[in-house]
């Protein structure tokens, strides 16, 4: 598949690759939220970690790792860039369609952006749960392309 320049840039120079510790370590850290979404047999797994400045309530840092195609890697790389400096509410407001537009994802790769949105929400929810905050229902209101245009 021929990709646009932004996907290729994020794929070749992924931003914020890494984590703030192993699965076991991050479980015990209250300033870290971890979102792990997708499944190996579906060919996509994203791990997104956020580090929250507990004084300001803002996302101070974000890291990702991704098992997946070029679009999945680019979507999660872009998500970490966007999350830095945002409040949790602002992070929750990121939509998969924003990622699709920014990266010019082709229609068959929309699900990669959906997965990235899920990863953002899961990481924020993990942080909130660890800190006794109320977690809103994870509504699946992703905007998919209509089937006819695929």
């Amino acid at each position, binding site marked *: 598949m021929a990709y646009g320049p932004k996907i290729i840039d994020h794929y070749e120079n992924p931003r914020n690759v890494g*984590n703030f510790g192993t699965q076991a370590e991050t479980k015990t850290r209250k300033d870290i939220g971890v979102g*792990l979404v997708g*499944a*190996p047999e*579906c060919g996509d797994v994203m791990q997104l970690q956020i580090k929250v400045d507990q004084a300001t309530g803002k996302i101070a840092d974000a890291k990702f*790792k991704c*098992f997946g195609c070029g679009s999945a*890697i680019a979507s999660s790389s872009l998500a970490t860039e966007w999350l830095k400096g945002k409040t949790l509410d602002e992070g929750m407001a990121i939509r998969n369609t924003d990622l699709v537009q920014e990266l010019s994802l082709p229609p*068959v790769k929309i699900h990669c952006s959906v997965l990235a949105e899920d990863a953002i929400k899961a990481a924020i929810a993990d942080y909130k749960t660890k800190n006794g905050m109320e977690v809103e229902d994870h509504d699946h209101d992703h905007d998919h392309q209509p089937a006819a245009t695929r």
Partner: protein
Amino acid sequence: MSVKTPIYLDNAATTPCDPRVVEAMLPYFTNDFGNPGSRNHVFGWNAEAGVDKAREQVAALLGASDKEIIFTSGATESNNLAIKGVAYMYEKAPAGSTGRGHIITSTIEHKAVLDPCKRLAKEGFEVTFLEPPKDGVITAAQVKAALRPDTILVTLMWANNEIGTINEIPEIGALCHEKGIVFHTDATQWVGKMPTNVERDNVDLLSFSGHKLYGPKGVGVLYVRRKKPRVRLVALQDGGGQERNMRSGTLNVPGIVGLGKACELAMQEMDRDGERLLKLRKKIEQAVTSRLDYCQVNGHADKRLPHLTNISFGFVEGEGLMMAMKDVCVSSGSACTSASLEPSYVLKGLGVGDELAHSSLRLSMGKSTTEAEVDYSIERIVSAVQKLRVLSPLYDMHKEGIDLSKIEWAHH
């Protein structure tokens, strides 16, 4: 040593035309453009002479008689004609009824065999889909165990297109002849690469296409046995009755001439090419599996085509991998490279887990592949896998001692 990129390692998808093939074809587009069906003038005779020569060249490569060669548009058409043509000819009950006859095939056939078989299953035939063992090789013992008194056709590929494994075709053919059952093989990946003799190998019907052996696209062959036993077919398309009434339609003369030339060249060169490519294949497999952990070569250790290898790389995804080595052109069992989003049914059929099926590459060399290209490709593959493993959460989790199969993944 520097190499020219991009490097083409996808010869199982298609091969370039040999320049000698193109040269042989050219006169038939312009000077010798006649219709071989025109029996009363020199233009027709010249075209017919070109087709006749090609028929002999093809027959020689297969160890067949030229009267047994039917030209088609490609292996997909040949497979359809063989499978449906035999089923309708040897049916036990007429259309509209059930119990029309039993057909044996396998789960790892090409779609051009699977889908005709599935259509016949809807039309009242019964189809057994043999499941290969982990090494991918369908055996005569498996076929024997599946035979029934009403079995009319066995159709199994000679070599698999994704992993290159070689089925026990001569033994299966012998079994079918003993029982009086028609035997068809889709030999698209085999012919022109490996020695073929339809008499020695007990084959009744054999399909292949020109573009896998350095011939042109849009032309293929169905070999149809004429003696011991004589195999008959119901034609699938009606028309002018060309090709002994089995395949109506004006012959693709330039394509046929090119295919004939390709067969002649294959006969002269395949042994030498095969030996050279087998060494290169072993070099790739040895280098990659020794330098990277968690990777496996799929299919039987020895019973595989010399020029093709399929390797799974744990914890990385195939399409992402191909993107990281985009100057080396290969194909992948990954869902992301197809429209279906399903990983390879062939690898799944071998019991390769979904996550490894997503992470597999098929590398298929051709006669112009050089050792320098192979060396370059090995470096690109190794560094691409290493790059993607740095990115892979699964690799981290595995190293942390987490059993990935025990995690409750959210499925989309």
